[in-house]
């Protein structure tokens, strides 16, 4: 049998072990909190607070989730909330009924932001990347410069603008605000992607009979699918996770999003961690689904064979 070339066997095994060890540590670091979130959502309040902790639910219960989905039917007052539910330890937060409506608010805002963000950024990125017009670099830098300012510095001015427009506590206000955050980044991402698409393809499309819309549709859209999917995901997640603007611009169940409502659970007189964690699990479901659906589109090599090479 021929000996394999390469470094001697012992160091090779050692290196493999080391890599495995660090990979495991990294996975633990990233997935640990999520694992604990899921595990604790299936435990009762008493099991969660037990010392030593139960890493796995000793007696899995869906009572926390049941509490979430039935919260709207119960009137939670100081007197009533101690009753019932062994899983939540009887501590149902006063805003519990807002959880499901806020989930819909988050979904609505997230989807609008994802779609509008893509439409706006796509056309802007095409114009900046492809059409040769005076001052296109300045346009790009101006757009990007808006992102240098920290969000927190914009909260008060934005609040005033939104209030004067009469849009406080509306989903529309959140959509518009989030677009201001996502569009510049998306434009930037798409421009670099578009600039990687061979210019001759654009020229060929123009010669073959495409105007700018045609070139966008027939060349840039199909060839930048991975970037489009990434943009869609990025915008949705940004909107889904956003906290500061939502806190300031929304006031009640009509427009409050999931992060606001869930954070509200912790500020109650007593906190039901099992309930909060179950809500947390529900909050990560849509992004995880999205990642699963879209990951197969995020593939490279779509432009192979376009031009010489």
């Amino acid at each position: 049998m021929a000996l394999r070339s390469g470094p001697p066997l012992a160091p090779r095994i050692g290196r493999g072990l080391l890599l495995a060890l660090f990979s495991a540590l990294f996975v633990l670091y990233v997935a640990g909190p999520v694992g604990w979130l899921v595990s604790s959502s299936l435990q009762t309040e008493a099991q969660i607070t037990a010392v030593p902790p139960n890493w796995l639910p000793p007696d899995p219960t869906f009572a926390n989730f049941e509490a979430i989905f039935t919260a709207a039917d119960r009137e939670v007052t100081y007197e009533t909330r101690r009753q019932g539910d062994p899983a939540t330890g009887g501590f149902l937060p006063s805003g519990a009924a807002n959880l499901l409506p806020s989930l819909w608010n988050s979904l609505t805002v997230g989807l609008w932001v994802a779609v509008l963000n893509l439409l706006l950024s796509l056309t802007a990125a095409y114009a900046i990347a492809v059409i040769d017009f005076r001052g296109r670099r300045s346009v790009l830098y101006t757009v990007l410069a808006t992102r240098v300012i920290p969000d927190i510095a914009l909260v008060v001015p934005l609040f005033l603008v939104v209030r004067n427009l009469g849009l406080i506590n509306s989903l529309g206000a959140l959509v518009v605000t989030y677009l201001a955050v996502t569009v510049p980044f998306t434009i930037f991402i798409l421009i670099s992607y578009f600039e990687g698409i061979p210019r001759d393809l654009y020229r060929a499309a123009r010669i073959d009979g495409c105007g700018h819309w045609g070139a966008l549709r027939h060349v840039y859209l199909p060839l930048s699918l991975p970037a489009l999917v990434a943009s869609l995901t990025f915008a949705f997640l940004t909107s889904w996770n956003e906290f500061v603007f939502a806190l300031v611009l929304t006031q009640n169940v009509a427009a409050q999003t999931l992060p606001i409502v869930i954070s509200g659970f912790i500020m109650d007189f007593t906190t039901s961690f099992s309930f909060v964690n179950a809500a947390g699990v529900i909050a990560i479901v849509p992004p995880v689904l999205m990642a699963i659906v879209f990951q197969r589109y995020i593939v490279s090599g779509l432009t192979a064979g376009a031009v010489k090479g």
Partner: protein
Amino acid sequence: MATIRCDALTKRYGAVTAVDALDLTIAHGEFMVLLGPSGCGKTTTLNMIAGLEEISDGRLLFDEADVTWQPPHKREVAMVFQSYALYPNKTVFENIAFPLRLRGVPREQIDRAVRQAADQLEIAHLLERRPHQLSGGQRQRVALGRAIVRKPSVFLMDEPLSNLDATLRLSMRSLIKRLHHGLGATFVYVTHDQAEAMTLADRIAVMRGGLIQQLDTPDGIYARPANLFVASFLGSPQINLVEGAVEDGGVFARGAFRLPLPAGLGAPGRQVILGLRPEDVGPPGEGLATLHARVELVSPLGSETHLEVRATGEVPLTLRVPKEWRAREGDLIEVGVAPERLHLFDRASEARIA
């Protein structure tokens, strides 16, 4: 039907003038080659004709209709690129069909036109493949198919053969020539390859620095280059150039190197550059000037032989001689030169002295 007229066509990039007030009329059905080194403005000119490059100044007319400001998709031109520029997400069939689909041609008609073009280009068996599954030559055939399927009246080609290997380049060259004969369309072809230019063109425009140096038939350009640049750009091996002066009695002289000039060529005392094509030599004979030379290097090519020699006065020359000449390195040879085959250029202006 398309006559293309460039009327003082100019392209500026900031302070740089890429194409400088170019005047050029390309007749209907003509095969015009824009020839020149890289950066000479030939591709910019082509792109302006295509509409891919905005025209800074001047006018562009198709059949006397002003198209200077028309976008490319309104100009009804077809183009083939050096990089092929096939749509990677479409099959070969869809690549060729694409221009017709955009024009809303009925399905059956598209099908017929694509298959006809594919047959003509011998790529009918590749129609369901995608570009990345094709070789370079096949890709360029698909690109040609996409161009001819529209039956355009103007064909623009931007160095279409530069990415192909030498053998393929020859067969594609004759394919393009046949296409031109078959289609009867106006062709504008950009290349830096003199052999492509000579074999394909009805007329060649030799360009340098955004200006046309000479516009003539291939034979005309080769036989009567307008200046030193054109003379040295065309011809392989390159034309021999010898600096010297015209002496009394119509003789070119550089030290001991002397050649009689045709009557009336160059006033005595004028500083000139003499041009002698490597192949314009033969056995000594009557009416010919004789050159004495020592052979330094023999390069047999099979069909012919290239000799590097030192002529009288230590003037280095390259000669192209029939393979029957059995010269060896170190031999002293005599060759005959016909005075009317000599080219003479002014040393200061580099222009041809007629």
